[in-house]
């Protein structure tokens, strides 16, 4: 029986379908989970109750209700909008996010595709979403959307560099770009890379926040200035796509940070033989820790101004990241 199942799954197309199904259920699930966490945590921080009635207890069904609501809304495309681009933008944003799940190792061997250039692929694909955002801003035929889209593009250019440079330290230490290879390197040295790569970790998390366009770097949306930025004209399920992409992206970027710096699915003192089962739980635990910090920032900080963000990226983060690389490389050679 089991052999037939393994046989069936060794077929390329069947395993592809299985993986697709898994990702297709994971993304909305994670989106809802994190969305709900954000609602409840922000309520806690602001002495509110948060969602309470939906689902009968603790408002657990609030996000399901919201999702259903989005599908009931009118799918509105502004008359002057560039319709094909306007419709393609949310899909592109979601694709950029979903593709990131491909290279996240949830356990030893538990990875959709262990690419030898895993982290390179992840960084490249994560910026595809920004093209979607720029498309959304440009095609909406709305001045606020346009400004939001352009801000997002400017932000991408400023923040992709520190994000990439921050990763290099870990890659040098591991000697590989494969995501599972980096985790195995951390297992073999016996400590998560954050112990020595704390500068890289800090830069990565800051840049990830900017990449996600969350407060304090939410200038592309900036609801008090640009109404809703590039999202202004979106409604219904297209808006839901952006919403899901934001939260799923939060998960994937945290997962990449956890993999590169916090040991991924591995935790010291947990027997390696049990990682097949505990690995995913450990990774998700670390991811939730990181997403909690992101939510915490979101409800504590005001927003930067676009030029202040550029200054921070070019004058602080990039030099710091370069120094980090130089020191890491020197030590790697010397030691």
């Amino acid at each position, binding site marked *: 029986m089991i052999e037939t199942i393994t046989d069936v799954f060794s077929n390329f197309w069947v395993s592809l379908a299985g993986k697709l199904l898994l990702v297709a259920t994971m993304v909305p699930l994670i989106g809802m989970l994190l969305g709900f966490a954000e609602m409840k945590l*922000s309520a806690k*921080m*602001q*002495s*509110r109750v948060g969602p309470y009635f939906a689902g009968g207890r603790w408002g657990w069904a609030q996000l399901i209700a919201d999702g259903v609501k989005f599908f009931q809304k009118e799918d509105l495309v502004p008359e002057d909008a560039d319709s094909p681009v306007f419709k393609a933008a949310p899909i592109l944003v979601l694709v950029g996010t979903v593709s990131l799940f491909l290279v996240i190792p949830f356990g030893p061997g538990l990875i959709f595709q262990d690419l030898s250039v895993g982290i390179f692929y992840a960084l490249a694909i994560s910026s595809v979403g920004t093209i979607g955002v720029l498309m959304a801003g440009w095609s909406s035929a709305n*001045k606020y959307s346009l*400004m939001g889209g352009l801000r997002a593009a400017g932000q991408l250019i400023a923040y992709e560099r520190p994000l990439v440079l921050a990763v290099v330290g870990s890659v040098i230490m591991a000697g590989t770009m494969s995501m599972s290879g980096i985790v195995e390197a951390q297992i073999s040295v016996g400590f998560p890379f954050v112990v020595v790569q704390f500068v890289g970790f800090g830069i990565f998390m800051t840049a990830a926040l900017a990449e996600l366009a969350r*407060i*304090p770097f*939410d*200038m592309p949306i*900036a*609801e*008090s*200035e*640009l*109404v809703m930025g590039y999202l202004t004209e979106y409604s219904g399920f297209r808006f839901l796509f952006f919403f899901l992409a934001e939260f799923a992206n939060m998960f994937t970027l945290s997962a990449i940070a956890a993999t590169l710096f916090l040991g991924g699915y591995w935790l010291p003192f947990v027997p390696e033989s049990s990682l097949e089962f505990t690995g995913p739980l450990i990774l998700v635990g670390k991811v939730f820790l990181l997403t909690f910090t992101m939510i915490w920032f979101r*409800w*504590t*900080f*005001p*927003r*930067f*101004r*676009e*030029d*202040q963000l550029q200054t921070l990226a070019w004058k602080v983060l990039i030099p710091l990241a370069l120094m980090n690389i130089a020191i890491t490389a020197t030590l790697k050679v010397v030691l």
Partner: protein
Amino acid sequence: MVTDNDLTKHLSEAQVSVEIQTEDMTLNIGPQHPSTHGVLRLVARVNGERCFDVRPVIGYMHRGYEKLSEVRTYLQITALINRIDWVSGYANEIPFIVAAEKLMDVEVPERAQYIRLILTEMARISSHLIFMASYPLELGAATPLFFALRDRERVLDLLEGVTGGRFHPNFNRIGGVKPNAGAGPTTKKTPQDLPAGFLADTRDAMSVVLDTCEEIEDLVAGNEIFRARTKGLGVLPPEVAAAFGVSGPNLRASGVNFDLRKVEDYLPYDKFDFDVVVGENGDCWDRWWVRLQEIRESTKIIQQAIDGIPPSGPLQAKVPKLIKVPQGETYVRAENPKGEMGYYLVSDGGTGPYRLKIRSASFSNISILSWILEGVLVPDIIAIMGSLDFVLGDVDR
């Protein structure tokens, strides 16, 4: 030696030949926009993120109160004017009532004066707490909103307990305050004035408000991003502020020590010890900081007033049943939370004013907008506009 001519020549040669052709864009901010505090409309000419010309358009909420006052009696007018600046409704009534009393030559009993003063300062606290709530929100921080509004509600509850209304108390009468106000059993023989336990509750609420001030200071003032966004932004020099008729905390933030509570005698402020908070640079940070300190000064005044209020006494001076204000004209101005609020009252001896000119603070305060917003970035439009703390009802009347 390099002459000016050489320098220009050098610069013109060194100039990069790539010049991007950009068009100006007209950005219509408002009348429906998340952070225009109502229906203010700004027509901004922007080049990228830089805005070089802003024209405020007002009047979307004009309700014609000046004209309406001419066909209303004095008692009815208080119900109108506390809708001018609705976040500090109580404070609006005072200068109008005092103007009428001045023409009638009525002496207001001391206890009524004290009640007026306590409630006016509470209106100031609630108005400034709204600012403490909304200003960080305009800069993107959502949490201070809930802290400030939570404790503003305590203040408003107390106001409601006395007057019956959170926003529109309609509590003042010519010659005093409304008798039989508040909770508790009332008989015709012994009118209740303040609800039982009001003074003790107010004292508690004041300490809560002071705690909130600490909390807000921790959360907002200690934040590097908030400092970076507000310090040195939207600087308003004192002479420009005076030329535009800017008043209140906005004027004091520019370093002008001018507070009508110290200058005028519409309420017995001279009996209390409080400081006029003055800023240094006149930037957005100072305007925020001055208001935070003014909340603290107001709690100080209220604490002293609770100590000093006469335990009993009449609430109402002897006035005729049908109020007719003798012929004459007067101008009474008061330090409202938003700035100077004044009423120029002309009476021809009837039951209502012949003419009532309302000088509202926000109207003069936002006249500075096109001057102060010239050449700023789009995010700073919101930051500067928010720091002026205006209410559209106060602008359009």
